[in-house]
């Protein structure tokens, strides 16, 4: 019985001719002594023969042509970039927005008065930091737009922070200066050159 169970376990491999020579010889020997197993295998073989002998379906003659047409169409769709349909501009919201902007503009002008200059408004606003600005440890003196001197708390050991009055501050300009220290009326920055490299030092005299 155990041998029959073992035999049934390799029926599939025997049909596929994937058994080893030893397995094949053993199974064929078993078939000679066990008609039941032999009959079981014959039934399996008849079943699988019927499956493998099923006729193959013929393909339609225009199959390839139809595939080509469909493939071209599908490929064109896949490769194309979808553009959203253009919408006509609705004139009612546009007119309403324009009217609102006009009202806001007139109100703004009345509040500031006719003598207000663009520069005055700019002085009341904090300066924006441009992208790519050095880290806070590198920024030592940031010259504000107002003319009052400002002591930067981040600067330690500095005798004085000098404001720059040589430029017109009406424009929204920000200056980023290196640390400046005053010594007997002269200011000079520390060298950033590597050790052992000689070069000119920048000296700013006020």
């Amino acid at each position, binding site marked *: 019985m155990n041998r029959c169970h073992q035999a049934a376990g390799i029926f*599939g491999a025997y049909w596929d001719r994937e058994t080893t020579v030893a397995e094949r010889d053993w199974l064929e020997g078993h078939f000679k002594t066990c008609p039941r197993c032999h009959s079981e295998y014959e*039934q*399996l073989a*008849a*079943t*699988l023969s*019927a*499956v*493998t002998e*099923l*006729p*193959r*379906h*013929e*393909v*339609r003659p225009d*199959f*390839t042509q*139809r*595939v*080509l047409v*469909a*493939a071209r169409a*599908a*490929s064109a769709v*896949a490769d194309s970039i979808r553009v959203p349909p253009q919408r006509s501009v609705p004139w009612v919201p546009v007119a309403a927005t324009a009217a609102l902007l006009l009202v806001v503009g007139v109100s703004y002008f009345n509040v500031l008065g006719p003598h207000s200059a663009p520069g005055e408004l700019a002085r009341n606003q904090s300066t924006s930091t441009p992208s790519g600005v050095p880290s806070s440890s590198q920024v030592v003196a940031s010259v504000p737009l107002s003319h009052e001197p400002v002591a930067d708390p981040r600067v330690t050991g500095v005798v004085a922070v000098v404001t720059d009055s040589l430029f017109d501050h009406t424009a929204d300009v920000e200056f980023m200066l290196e640390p400046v220290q005053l010594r007997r009326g002269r200011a000079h920055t520390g060298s950033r050159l590597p050790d052992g490299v000689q070069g000119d030092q920048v000296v700013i005299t006020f």
Partner: protein
Amino acid sequence: MDSERDSQSPQIVSLSDEDLMARVAEDDERAFTELVGRFRARVTNLISRVLNDRESSDDLAQEVFVRVFVHRRNYRTGSKFSTWVFTIAANLAKNEIRRRVRRRNWFSLDALTEVFSDSIIQLADPTEGREQVLEREQLQGAVGQAIATVPEKYRLALVLRDIEGLSYEEIAEVLGVPGGTVRSRINRARSMLKRKLQPLLRKQDGS
């Protein structure tokens, strides 16, 4: 143009499936046509046997090749083309089976009869008698029907092995399961089929 085609045709025909696919990836339609010619019968037959529906199998086989063309640049150079195309076909067939199960109109007896009558008419041996033709027709119809009633995962493995003749390793790659699982599924499918067809086969032996 025609002379150019004639001069290139022998070259195209002698290329391997994988080399042809490399050309298809570079938008070579002639290489694609050659590949379709090589695989259309096998792909259609696979789908037809899995679904047991001739009409749908044509459309699905067409979809297989459309996908091959659309995804031509996703084909991994070095992998076997037949495995890739059978994977696409098997996935489409599985999706179709599941769609039909959802719609609960799976298995049309009319379609089955039409499929097998077509096949039998094509392959009928003129020397066979009417009785023999009917017997063979009955057997083939029963085999097709029996295959269609085997659960999907076993059926795909069985059709790939016993109808399309793929190796166990190829089937493992197509189905995305280990080789041991493939062997187990095929053995189970064969046992199911044997049980279903046993009465008919005994009857045939007796007659």
